[in-house]
């Protein structure tokens, strides 16, 4: 395939501009951050310049226009913003009756007027990554920027070069956190904005926690978030991560999640993409110890011109591990979607059980999906399988429902919900499961809660 030369030039220029931004603002960036974060910037920037922003020639970004996202280049947020609003007031409608410990992040930073780093029961630490780097350098030294090597692409290095803050979570050995922690990521500004959020979650031996991340936009601007999350699960740790992405239709969200899992650890992640202009989620997991288990689930519901691209790569490096990847999508209007799932089983990872599936429903002729489930297997005593389907709602099921008096629209909704339910049922926290079930139902009905936290109802877009 050939691409016009000017894309390349433009691309290189974008990268040069980013380098300039870095050089010009280096003092500001570094002033806010601990030394151990600053030490990595230069090398990361060089790596970024070398790798560049992945173009469509890069196989794993074939279906999503990355250079387009960075052009024209957006203003970047380089310090925490004071936001003069009661975030709790704004957010309350979205997750009622859910007893969580809530943390708010605004444009990738912990707002200055909140407690930077809290200590919860069992010496759990939660709060600002920047603050954690200052107060607990021993923890970050060990874990910060250690797990991105699973896919050292340019965009991850770009984040490392600019990263200042994000969420930090530390669960010490043996601590089992009862109450889920909920993080609300809000993007709000008076103009388009680029955000480079950086999160780090460390789960000690035999610890357990669940975390809910909600991504929201509070203004009708274009927000480009290039977020990196690193997760370390020590032996026998359990981690449930649920993520609800509900951002405005001009927002662009690239997330890179890296998990390293030691012996007998279990990680389950559910990513529910309800809205977003362009969403690209990358999931990487390294199963590094025996009997580790990884479950990566995703649901995407898209319409209009939305584009949702999920990329998931589970690397089995130790024997006797299990992984499940299940992604489902419903695409309406002119929405486009992509899925790439990869299972790699290394030579010594015998007795691996790995499963991967991607199912899609296209509701219109304009909707489009590209899916690439992949297996890369170097060990023989394994059970691996994958499957992918693209289709429509089952006409026989639709008729069955209608023959019982349920109208066409309702019958379709029931079937779509049933299709999505597969993913929702994997959410571990029951009230959250119900809540997300509700949100999905409303999303499918086109009546997503009239909540201030949801841009769908504000700005120029009429729902």
């Amino acid at each position, binding site marked *: 395939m050939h691409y016009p030369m000017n894309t390349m030039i433009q691309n290189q220029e974008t990268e040069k501009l980013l380098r300039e931004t870095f050089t010009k603002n280096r003092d500001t960036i570094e002033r806010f951050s601990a030394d151990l974060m600053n030490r990595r910037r230069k090398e990361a920037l060089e790596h970024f310049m070398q790798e560049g922003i992945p173009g469509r020639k890069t196989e794993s970004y074939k279906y999503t226009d990355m250079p387009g996202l960075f052009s024209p280049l957006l203003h970047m947020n380089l310090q925490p913003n004071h936001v003069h609003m009661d975030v709790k007031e704004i957010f309350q409608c979205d997750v009622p009756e859910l007893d969580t410990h809530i943390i708010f992040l605004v444009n990738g930073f912990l707002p200055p007027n909140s407690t930077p780093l809290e200590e919860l029961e069992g010496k759990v630490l939660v709060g600002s990554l920047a603050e954690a780097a200052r107060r607990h350098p021993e923890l970050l030294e060990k874990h910060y920027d250690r797990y991105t090597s699973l896919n050292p692409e340019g965009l991850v290095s770009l984040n490392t070069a600019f990263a200042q803050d994000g969420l930090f979570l530390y669960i010490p050995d043996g601590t089992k956190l009862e109450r889920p922690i909920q993080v609300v990521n809000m993007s709000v500004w008076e103009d388009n904005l680029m955000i480079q959020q950086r999160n780090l979650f460390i789960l000690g031996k035999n610890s357990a926690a669940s975390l809910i991340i909600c991504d929201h936009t509070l203004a009708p601007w274009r927000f480009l978030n290039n977020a990196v999350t690193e997760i370390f699960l020590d032996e026998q740790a359990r981690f449930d991560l649920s993520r609800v992405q509900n951002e405005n239709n001009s927002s662009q969200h690239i997330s890179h999640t890296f998990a390293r899992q030691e012996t007998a650890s279990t990680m389950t992640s559910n990513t529910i993409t309800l809205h977003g202009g362009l969403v690209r989620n990358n999931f990487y997991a390294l199963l590094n110890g025996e009997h580790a288990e990884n479950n990566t689930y995703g649901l995407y519901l898209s319409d209009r011109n939305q584009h949702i691209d999920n990329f998931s790569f589970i690397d089995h490096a130790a024997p006797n591990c299990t992984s499940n990847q299940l992604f489902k999508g419903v695409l309406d209007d002119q929405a486009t979607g992509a899925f790439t799932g990869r299972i790699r089983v290394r*030579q010594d990872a015998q007795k691996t059980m790995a499963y991967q599936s991607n199912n899609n429903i296209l509701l219109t002729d304009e909707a489009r*999906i590209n*899916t690439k489930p992949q297996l*890369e*297997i170097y060990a*023989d005593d394994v059970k691996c399988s994958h499957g992918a389907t693209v289709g429509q709602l089952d006409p026989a099921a639709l008729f069955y429902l209608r023959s019982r008096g349920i109208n066409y629209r309702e019958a379709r909704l029931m079937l779509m919900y049933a299709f999505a339910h597969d993913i929702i049922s994997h959410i571990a926290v029951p009230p959250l499961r119900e809540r997300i079930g509700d949100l999905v139902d409303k999303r499918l009905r086109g009546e997503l809660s009239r909540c201030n936290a949801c841009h769908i109802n504000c700005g120029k877009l009429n729902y």
Partner: protein
Amino acid sequence: MEKEQDKLLREVTSGEYKYGFYTDIEMDTIPPGLSEEVIRKISLLKGEPGFMLDFRLKAFRHWQKMKMPGWAHLKIPEIDFNSIIYYAAPRKKKSPSNLDEVDPELLETFNKLGIPLDEQKRLTGVAVDAVMDSVSVKTTFRETLAELGIIFCSFSDAVREHPDLVKKYMGSVVPYTDNFFAALNSAVFSDGSFCYIPKGVRCPMELSTYFRINASNTGQFERTLIVAEEDSYVSYLEGCTAPMRDENQLHAAIVEIVAMKGAEVKYSTVQNWYPGDKLGRGGIYNFVTKRGICRGERAKISWTQVETGSAITWKYPSCILQGDYSVGEFYSVAVTNNFQQADTGTKMIHIGKNTKSTVVSKGISAGKSNNSYRGLVKVLKNAQNARNFSQCDSLLLGDRCGAHTFPHLEVDNQSAIVEHEATTSRIGEDQIFYCNQRGISTEDAIGLIVNGYVREVINKLPMEFAVEAQKLLQISLEGSVG
């Protein structure tokens, strides 16, 4: 029956590459290297009309601007295209019109390969075009077929005798710009087979091409073109072997199929190029572009391949389903052992309405080999009611080999139903134990299980080929059981 089995067993247990001999024969070659001059020389040697030279030169100029594709899951050593001999032909006085004029050494070579060119000795059901290195040696049953209006001859003869047909269809399915190896082939291809089935004719015998690389240091670049007019039918077979050498040799072929309204073309390959030795030395680089187009309504193209040879295989026989209700099929068994690498699969491009495609791929990896399935199912916007089902299974024999699956599904029409399924597994110990308990040795048990595993594909081959393919499978897997 028992005798047959004993024979098979013996063959299996002594299973080495049995086509590895070399025929000492007088050759016409040109010096190694690739340039416009070389291309002009090939064209001149073949006495081609001007349009052929133009085509070659355009392709060459395009190729010079291209790079080797790097996306396949293969480790391809650097190829020095200037050290390859692009034309090597067994010396002959003139085109052989009957068997007496063919060099007896050549006849003996093909006899040894089990492809007697003497029509009396041949099973009457198969017509053969035998290609050695750069040129076609002999095409059997030409006259018999000609009575039905079927043209079956070497590509060179076709250029001479049917330039209009060649001009019309050559490059219409695989343009020279298609990919690096297709461009190279278009520039330097030396011979190959040509086949034309007129409207309404069902070809009464299997047509086959047998490719043999003999000379050292040469590349083989052949080109096959099959045109099936409305409501015609043909079943086409392709086989290939090469001598055992420590060097790697390049084979970059093109196969183009055009199926008109209601036509059906079945193309079967048993690919058994020299795979290299147990340490991975030598063997053929098999970089092939095969593609068919269903031009009209209800046309059907079916690819069946059994790939056991070659050091590296890069091959994706594909179907463009342009006519409404047209059908594409791909059935594949790919076996890799020792240090072999294969990256093979198919592309099914759905353009017409109510088009249907089926993909069944069975990969078997043994030794330290790597075996990948790579596929694309693309449903274009106006391809209403397209259906695809793909099943891609991998079987691993041994713990130092790799099996990989890379399907791509691109769907642009909501009425499409596209399904892909894949599994990777090894032969269960319980299965082997069960056989052992019934008195079957482990080696035989694996043979049985592998045969069962590939049955679905082997059954698609014409009878004779199926038997051959089964033997080949066993030989290829020889010594893979630890």
